[in-house]
């Protein structure tokens, strides 16, 4: 509170009401989704029919397939986890080399390169998706014509989904890791060199441990954004659908509360990650 500011009573009440209304707006959809995961009715709609866990544990009896018995959904969760794991690994590794490149090297064209690294963040995800789709199949056609190779991994499918998500998530990892590397006190490294440490030893014992919070933080953000990505993924999926694409398809067809059950699962999982992160590093940036 800025103490000396004139704040009439009506303004204070108005602010309070606005903030309260904002919070209701923010949480209304989430609470609704969660509540209807436990409603004893075949569709996620009012009225309230009583509490049930059928949408989690139901096994086909009464036509209710619960989340844990819904192999399609469980499979798509695994697919999403697999994709997110690869995307996280690639993004954090390239993000780290990029951070060292931009913070520790000086070369011609560096300014241009650092600008280019931001560009993927202002390209709509759908366009990243279609451009990679088109380019990958051109390359696949070329490989087929010239060498007679069947480059299956360049056709719509999980490898392309990974590539599509990596295309913009590397930029986010680079920003996060660079920001921390920039604040690093170089004298620490120099001291280690003076004491006779080799370059790899300094990297392993001084620089990387210092970067650890940024590495973990960017890994978590990238993992989460990969898991939630829809726009880019939609353009590049093949036979195996990640969770978001699977849910989208079912939402269009009017699905049972099993989708609410998945959502509850996602809320619990992401809250857990969020809490872990907030405890770990308060300066995490989005």
């Amino acid at each position, binding site marked *: 509170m800025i103490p000396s500011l004139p704040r009439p009573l009506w303004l204070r009440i108005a602010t309070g009401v606005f903030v309260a209304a904002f919070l209701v707006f*923010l949480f209304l959809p989430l609470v609704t989704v969660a509540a209807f995961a436990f409603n004893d009715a075949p569709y996620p709609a009012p009225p309230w029919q009583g509490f049930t866990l059928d949408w989690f544990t139901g096994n086909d009896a009464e036509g209710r397939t619960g989340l844990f018995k819904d192999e399609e959904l469980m499979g798509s969760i695994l697919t999403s986890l697999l994709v997110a794991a690869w995307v996280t690994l690639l993004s954090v590794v390239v993000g780290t080399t990029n951070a060292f*490149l931009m913070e*520790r090297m000086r070369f011609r064209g560096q300014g241009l390169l650092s600008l280019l690294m931001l560009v993927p963040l*202002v390209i709509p995800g759908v366009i990243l998706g279609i451009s990679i789709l088109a380019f990958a199949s051109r390359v696949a056609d070329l490989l087929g014509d010239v060498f007679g190779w069947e480059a299956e991994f360049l056709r719509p499918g999980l490898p392309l989904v990974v590539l599509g998500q990596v295309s913009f998530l590397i930029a986010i990892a680079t920003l996060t890791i660079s920001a921390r590397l920039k604040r690093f006190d170089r004298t620490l490294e120099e001291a280690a060199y003076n004491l006779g440490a080799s370059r790899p030893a300094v990297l392993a014992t001084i620089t990387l441990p210092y970067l650890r919070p940024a590495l973990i933080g960017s890994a978590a953000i990238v993992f989460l954004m990969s898991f939630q990505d829809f726009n880019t993924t939609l353009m590049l999926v093949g036979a195996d659908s990640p969770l978001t694409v699977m849910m989208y398809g079912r939402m269009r067809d009017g699905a049972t509360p099993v989708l609410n059950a998945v959502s509850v699962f996602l809320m619990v999982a992401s809250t857990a990650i969020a809490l872990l992160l907030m405890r770990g590093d308060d300066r995490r940036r989005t």
Partner: protein
Amino acid sequence: MAEVGSKTTRLLLLGLLLAPALVWLVGVILLPHLDLALLSFRERIGPGEFSWSLAQYRTFFAEPLYWDVFVRTAVISVIATGLTLLIAFPIAWTIAKLTRGRVSALLFAVCLIPFWVSETVRTLGWMILLRETGVLPAVLVSLGITDTPVEMLYRDATILVGLVYTSLLFMVVPLYSSLESLDDSLIEAAYDLGGSGWTVLRTVVIPHAAPGITAGCIVVFMLTLGNYLTASLLGGKNSLWFTEQIYTQFITRFNWEQGAAFGFLLLALSSLMVWLGLRLSGQKFADVMSRT
């Protein structure tokens, strides 16, 4: 690490660090977009035969449907960005200036929580709330405001609600960080010199927060323009959002040339707005991006 190592090792290191960056930027960003550009400028004249042409772009301007959807998408995105700014500003102000310590941190954390859950889940929530058999229509009937449940989905207003909701985080965060760095004594001084609340807002607060406002608006506009999920689920099945047109051409009709042209038009619009935003507020791209 320039202090240690000979010139060759330095060059080797530079090469090793440069390689992943170039593979990423050239292989995954630059070349695919060049390819997309080439694709948009050709026309299929026979089986496996193509020629250069502007046909794809001509179709866009000649067919009112495409043009209308494009303009509609742009206009709704601008409105959504403005609304998001109007809603997010008081919230960011409250977190940055009206609360302190734990309350402020808690409020900020609470604002972030919904965005840890995927957009799919949030959209599912709005669908359950707003559809004809949903929660809000039922509430309206039981309150006696309407006689029968009204369908609240598939309207422009609904799309706006969904888009604003999805975008709030990307506005609150940059606004908060730019407002937080504003020195309280500047605001007090402005009041002491007799400025009214409105004058202080206009001459002190907004100029200081301009980079944050620009960053937020650019990101929100870009995300709304490129949104697919919210627009298509809350807006119905008529493909009236431009990204849906791109999807239809690319995936459903397999008309990649047309889809590529649409993609480029969307990219052009999005880049134009980013440029305009930077221009109007006198900001630099790199400064703005580092705030988001």
